[in-house]
């Protein structure tokens, strides 16, 4: 059998959870029993790598699912490609009792004739999926709307009938740490489980944001507190502040606080003295990103402080065994974090506490299963009635089951404690929302004009929102022009697009992959803003006058919780309009070539600002013939900025400027011209600026031949000057 078609299955195991990642073809070689071996309580199947599935493969798959159904309490499918979704739709019981958490939806852009595959989280789109709908998406290339390239009735039929997947906190934590997978792209509402027994156990699941009821949690705790942070997601600035306050409030009340399963994002933000309850808080174990040198996979691994204390105190992360291949795995942590980890106290978290936590987790699981319906009812009631004051105890279960009624179980959610977050429009720049406002970015040609619509859904203020929206709008316009030129001019596409395509992709990816890390997001966004400013500047310098219309509109929103305004934000909309004729002229002007002695030049393209920051003018060397006099000096893809002291901007003027410089040089007897240029170094991702000097042989001064004086004082008619410029000779 050809190697490419062989199915590879990668297993990731942690306690009761096993994840299987399938790569290749599911066909007759799929061995259901063998693959199902070792399946535990929870099965996660990553299907993103499945290329094909045959009918016999389906039969084997069904056998596999049959075993999994018997062994597992939960089965989750992630990253299902379209052909797998087809099988869910066509084959009964293809998913057994499993739930699809995410799937790739095939999209198509009519403008670019481009196919796309977008990963959609079921929980993000659950309501619309019920109606067999998913939203159009902006095309990554042109920004126009791209649509689901399948019949939604049939493609979404299984998903529409699926119950909402709600994985256990342990599963969410496993997905986040081991598979780097987030169940929802949206912010996860913080859920808190609290249990009071020999100690107070508090479990946090979701994102730590401004709604975190830290004060209320801190009040009333005493003795030993165990905080389980395995399920903690994003940590926002507001959430971090509340956390610090909570720990300060706890300090005089508690004997000690143990932190379990501390995620690395917590370490980065909150491993500071003021967040450690005056030294009473001790980290029992934490997660760090590790990379295995053998199988080259990256995953978050648990580091028990007690076990690795002797290594950690030297500001070094311990070397761990890769849980998948047992190879050596090394931590990917920066030195400042390791220095902080070196200060961690050795936790005295004995076996009795470990047992306590295990018992509590078991009981929580049982209680959650047993009280699923009552909890839901209580949730619904709490929203309607609104609890006053502390309002913590929504579900009070005196556990008759388990260990003789020894615990009190509190289930708290942020919603229950602080009421619902209400988002309301507070103000707007106009009484009525203008008709032109579009919620999605759009570029439309109509009525002889090019209309660019841009929306910023979450701006800090209207001014920065307008500025950002305008930046993205100009970027969109520039890309549109770039597409048009590229369609006609392959050399331009290869050289000019080729210069800035990768830096742009890198930057946008940097922003996209910043994920929940707000600092990285902000850092990337600020860089993009700067580049957009450059693009807008270079664009306006050349074509600003062509802007026919610019409209802006904003709406101000407030997020209120418990009648307290938690946050204000702006939705900002911008519309730019350019006459199509002007756009055509821009395309013509930006792609106009000028050949000078075998060297072809084009104008500096605004998109180049992704690589060449702060530039607005210049000429790009598009091609160079070997016989060109510039061949030994300049190379294609270099951006010429100055000729002597003159800025370069218009290709057609280069020759004139060059000749003028040459003439001026000869007059001064300085037969060299400095050509300043910049070039992009892709390996180092930097721009290098250097001068080149064009030299030539200065014309020799004419030798003056003096005619010997004639004896005749009056030489008569005829030429009287020197012989060398005697026009009669």
């Amino acid at each position, binding site marked *: *059998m*050809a190697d*490419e*078609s062989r199915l590879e299955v990668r297993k990731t195991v942690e306690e009761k959870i096993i994840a299987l990642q399938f790569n290749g*073809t599911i*066909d*007759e*070689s799929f061995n259901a029993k063998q693959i199902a071996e070792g399946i535990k309580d929870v099965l996660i199947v990553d299907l993103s790598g499945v*290329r*094909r*599935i*045959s*009918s*016999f493969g*389906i*039969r084997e798959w*069904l056998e596999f699912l049959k075993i999994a159904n018997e062994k597992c309490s939960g089965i989750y499918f992630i990253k299902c490609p*379209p*052909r797998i979704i*087809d099988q869910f*739709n*066509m*084959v*009964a*019981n*293809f998913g057994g009792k499993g739930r699809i958490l995410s799937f790739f939806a*095939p999209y*198509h852009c009519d403008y670019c004739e481009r*196919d796309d595959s977008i990963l959609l989280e079921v929980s993000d789109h659950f309501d619309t999926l019920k109606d067999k709908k998913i939203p159009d998406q902006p095309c990554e290339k042109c920004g126009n709307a791209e649509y*689901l*390239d*399948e*019949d939604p*009735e*049939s*493609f979404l*039929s299984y998903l529409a009938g699926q119950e909402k997947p709600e994985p256990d906190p342990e599963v969410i934590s496993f997905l986040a740490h081991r598979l780097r997978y987030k169940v929802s792209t949206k912010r996860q509402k913080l859920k808190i489980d609290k249990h009071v027994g020999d100690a107070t156990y508090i479990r946090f699941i979701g994102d730590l944001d401004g709604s975190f009821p830290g004060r209320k949690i801190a009040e009333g705790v005493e003795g030993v507190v165990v905080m389980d942070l395995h399920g903690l997601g994003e940590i926002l600035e507001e959430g971090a502040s509340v956390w610090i306050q909570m720990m300060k409030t706890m300090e005089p009340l508690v004997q000690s606080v143990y932190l379990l399963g501390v995620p690395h994002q917590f370490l980065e933000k909150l491993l500071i003295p003021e967040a450690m309850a005056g030294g009473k808080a001790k980290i029992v174990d934490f997660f760090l990103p590790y990379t295995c040198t053998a199988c080259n996979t990256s995953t978050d691994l648990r580091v028990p402080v007690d076990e690795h204390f002797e290594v950690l105190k030297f500001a070094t992360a311990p070397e761990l065994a890769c849980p998948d291949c047992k190879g050596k795995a090394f931590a990917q942590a920066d030195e400042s974090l390791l220095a902080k980890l070196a200060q961690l106290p050795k936790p005295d978290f004995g076996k009795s506490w470990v047992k306590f936590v295990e018992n509590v987790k078991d009981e929580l699981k049982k209680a959650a299963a047993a009280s699923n319906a009552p909890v839901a009812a209580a949730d619904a009631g709490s929203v309607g009635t609104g609890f006053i004051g502390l309002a913590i105890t929504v579900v009070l279960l005196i556990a008759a089951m388990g260990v003789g009624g020894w615990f009190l179980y509190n289930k708290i959610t942020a919603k229950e404690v602080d009421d619902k977050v209400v988002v309301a429009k507070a103000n707007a720049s106009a009484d009525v929302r203008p008709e032109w406002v579009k919620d999605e970015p759009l570029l439309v040609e109509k009525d002889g004009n090019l209309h660019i619509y841009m929306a910023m859904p979450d701006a800090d203020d209207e001014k920065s929102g307008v500025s950002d929206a305008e930046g993205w709008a100009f970027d969109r316009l520039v890309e549109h022009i770039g597409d048009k030129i590229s369609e006609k001019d392959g050399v331009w596409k290869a050289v000019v697009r080729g210069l800035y395509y990768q830096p742009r992709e890198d930057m946008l990816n940097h922003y996209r992959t910043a994920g929940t890390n707000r600092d990285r997001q902000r850092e990337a966004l600020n860089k993009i803003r700067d580049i957009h400013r450059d693009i807008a500047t270079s664009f306006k310098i050349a074509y600003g006058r062509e802007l026919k219309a610019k409209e802006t509109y904003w709406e101000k929103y407030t997020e209120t919780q418990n009648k307290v305004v938690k946050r204000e934000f702006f939705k900002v909309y911008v519309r730019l309009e350019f006459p199509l004729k002007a756009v055509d002229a821009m395309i013509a002007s930006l792609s106009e070539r000028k050949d000078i002695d075998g060297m072809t030049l084009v104008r500096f393209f605004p998109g180049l600002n992704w690589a060449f920051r702060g530039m607005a003018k210049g000429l790009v060397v598009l091609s160079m013939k070997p016989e060109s006099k510039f061949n030994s000096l300049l190379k294609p893809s270099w951006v010429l900025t100055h000729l002597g002291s003159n800025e370069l901007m218009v290709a057609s003027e280069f020759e004139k400027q060059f000749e003028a410089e040459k003439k001026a040089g000869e007059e001064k007897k300085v037969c060299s011209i400095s050509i300043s240029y910049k070039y992009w170094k892709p390996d180092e991702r930097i721009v290098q600026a250097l001068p080149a000097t064009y030299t030539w042989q200065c014309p020799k001064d004419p030798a003056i031949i003096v005619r010997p004086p004639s004896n005749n004082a009056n030489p008569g008619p005829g030429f009287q000057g020197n012989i060398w410029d005697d026009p009669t000779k």
Partner: protein
Amino acid sequence: MTETSPQLLACDKDVMTLRRLEKVFFAAGLKCQTKESAPAAADFEGGARLLLVAENYLQFALGVAPPDCAILVLAEEDVPGALGAAAKDARVNHLFGRRAANPVRSWEVLHVVRRLVKHYELEGIKPFLHWGARMHETLVASSEDLHHVVEWVPSFCEKLGTPPKVQETFAELAHELLMNAVYDAPIDAGGNALFAHDRKREVVLTEDQAALFSVGTDGETLAVSVRDPFGRLERRHVFGGMHRALAAGGQLDTEGGGAGLGMMYIYQHGYGSFFTIKPGISTEVTVLYDLGLNRREFTTLPRSVHVFHEQ
């Protein structure tokens, strides 16, 4: 059938479809009678032994058509219903899938009726593609050959400029057809299946047992075909399997072990499938894919299924 009597009766309420069909039949050299209503017993008195009916007249047709009349169905909305009728009634071997308000494909009608009336022995994908089409044929005589061909199909499709999803779709289809030809079809002299019981084993066939794999395109249609030299497939496998796969709201019930899955694959992967069965001699399955359709159009397109049972 006499030269003067109509050889073919076409019934459809859409007069435009009938006019179009008349031209096709004229081109085929067939004498034809058209009717804008359901067929009646009297319509066959002239000797018509080919009946082309719209799906909404199918039940009438089954009641009145003579036992030796071939019934061809124009299937629009209820393809599963037509497949169900075909599974039960041996007179129904041809379903012409067409989208509502779209004309039936003339070439397809011509191809089918000419073959039925004139008994042409057509083989391979050539009859389905325009002149000048690019085609490849190869003998598949082992499991190794099979996997080589399946892995090669995407790269061939890629060279034709087909999107990745079509490439993988056709690799899947090639795999399905070849598995049937290499594992299910071969039998020994006593008529016992040689390899059907174990699809995981490596198989080597003799030259006269080998399957012929063809793939080709004319830029509009992508065609794939597999012929085995055994002729063991039966029409009930085709229509029974497909009907089972498409009935019950389109979800194949797998309680019985997934019978019908293979036919569902063939049905789903192309807009038309042609089965030429010569019992004991050969089985050829040809599947066509329209390169001009996007996925959304393709998914909702009613499929054509044709079974030619030739002696």
